[in-house]
């Protein structure tokens, strides 16, 4: 048995990501933080669907008898992974454009919009 280990790892990943957003100043590091939160949530979803001793929900003709791992959370995770790539790419594109204008990726110096 693995017990609650995946869920503990999820909490660690999400907390680490949120801490990164507050504590790190480099814009690319902030995007890494978002990526960590995302992997935490994905791991949470997959662990939710896991049934001990279950079979993967991908067979057309499933072997009879064994319980099946829940398919819905896996579908959700697939969607979430794709959305995550889109947001990451968009944020990195903005970071590159900001660097081109300001010559820095330091959040303390990218403060034209204030007040």
């Amino acid at each position, binding site marked *: 048995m693995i017990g609650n280990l995946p869920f503990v790892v999820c909490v660690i990943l999400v907390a680490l990501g*949120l801490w990164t957003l507050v504590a790190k100043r480099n814009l690319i590091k902030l995007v890494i933080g978002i990526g960590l939160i995302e992997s935490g949530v994905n791991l949470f979803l997959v662990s939710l669907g896991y049934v001990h001793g279950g079979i993967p929900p991908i067979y057309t003709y499933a072997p009879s008898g064994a319980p099946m791992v829940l398919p819905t959370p896996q579908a959700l995770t697939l*969607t979430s992974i794709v959305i995550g790539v889109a*947001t990451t790419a968009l*944020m990195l594109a*903005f970071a590159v454009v900001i660097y081109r*204008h300001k010559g820095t990726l330091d959040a303390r110096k990218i403060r*034209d919009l204030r*007040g």
Partner: protein
Amino acid sequence: MSAHAPILAIAVPLLGGFATPLLAKLHKRIRDLWVLLIVLFVGVAVGYVAVHVFTQGIWVYVLGARHPQETVVSGGFPIRIMLVVDAMGAFMGVITALMALVAFPAALKYLPEEEGKTLALTLGSLLLAGIMGMAYTGDLFNFFVFLEVTSIAACALIGFRTWTSRAPEAAFKTMLLFSVSGLLFLLAVAFLYGEYGALNLAYVSVLLRGSAVDRLALALFLGALLMKAAAAPVHFWAPDAYGEAPAVKALLLVVNTQVSLYGLWRVLFTLYGGILDTTVGWLVVAMGLLTMVVAAFMALAQTDLGRLVAYGAVSQIGYMLLGVGVGLVTMSGRPDYGLVAMKGGIFHMLNDALTVGLLFLCVAAVELVKGTRDLRELGGLGHGLPEVALFFLVASLALAGIPPLNGFASKILIYEGSFRASPILAAVAVLTSILLLAVFARAFQGAFLGPRVNVEVRVPWPILVSMGVLAVGILILGLVPGFFVEAMVTPAAKALWLGRSLYLSAVLGG
């Protein structure tokens, strides 16, 4: 066709948006015509759905069923994805379609071809699809997907003017905060799925028991949606985003904020309506007061016209939070003033869309004519642009809640309802309105009054027509509000405040 109106209102702008760049390769005129057709189609579909919902009750549309009106049998487990449109969702759809019908024709003339017009139109269409999806869906995970669609489309719209340094900065900050809120929303959905094994909003709502996991999920929903709805103190992205997006497209961003508010009401009233106590209501009220006051003071300190209007728009969100928050506080006792406050808050969503939309169109016109939005350099435009000056004046007065315009009609409901809950709430709301009047009087004086200046560029007529439509809407809603309140706002308020059991039985049967 008409039986599929709810899904078509989402699918057509989504697929049509992706087709827009391809058609732009053929000819620019075909693309413009195509975009107009999409928006017109959405308008017609939303209108049809709204008439149906306001006359015959909740419309449940089941995807993948033999028959789209097929609902689950009593006590059954809903396995299909559903769209559930009740009066509130239909009302939100009407606001969205109205703003899209105004924003897109104006955008066709406002955006220069070499500045990524095709991209902006595509993203606008996707944003429209996401907003419609959030308004109509009855499924938590679909809500998350549409939330992310709106986040991506909105942030790309904010930052697509990459040759300025301010727009990508606003887009990056907004996107970062939107991503976090979206992921926490997904985490909340996962909590509920883990607890109950379902994603259907109505079904989960029936099963909710108020355990610790449910409450944690509620906290995550609240945090994520309050952020996306720009409630203080997590509103920091909103003035940046509204101010830096192309002013014509800021209309859609305002609707995007409102649909996040709608999602918040949906979660609080329908999903958690059975187990909610007044603490959350008071939190919403407190954040509403903070939002309106802080944003109004910040508007006073602005020198950029676009940013000033953006802060004005954020302060209006405070009024909606206050109105519906009072309804939330009084939901258990159901006194009649709670419904009055709810009506005010929901009516204010429509009024805010009209007035703020008109203000942003005026900003767009000023920027088009003078090439700047700095109040220190502007002035005297009233001689050359009398119609824009008039529209700005009307919208400012409506936003500040001056009778007999529409802003007052909804604000008096909020004042009266919140006064009965606590006089302090109404006092703060009235004082903030006075402050906003001062702010917008200053903006009007700075941009339009003063010695005559030369105006070479004319404002294109589609923008003026869009402004005229919004101004007429402001006047009509101001002079005869009773008709609209009775026909649309009261059903919408009741659908949230009293209609939870109707919503649940419409989806689950029995």
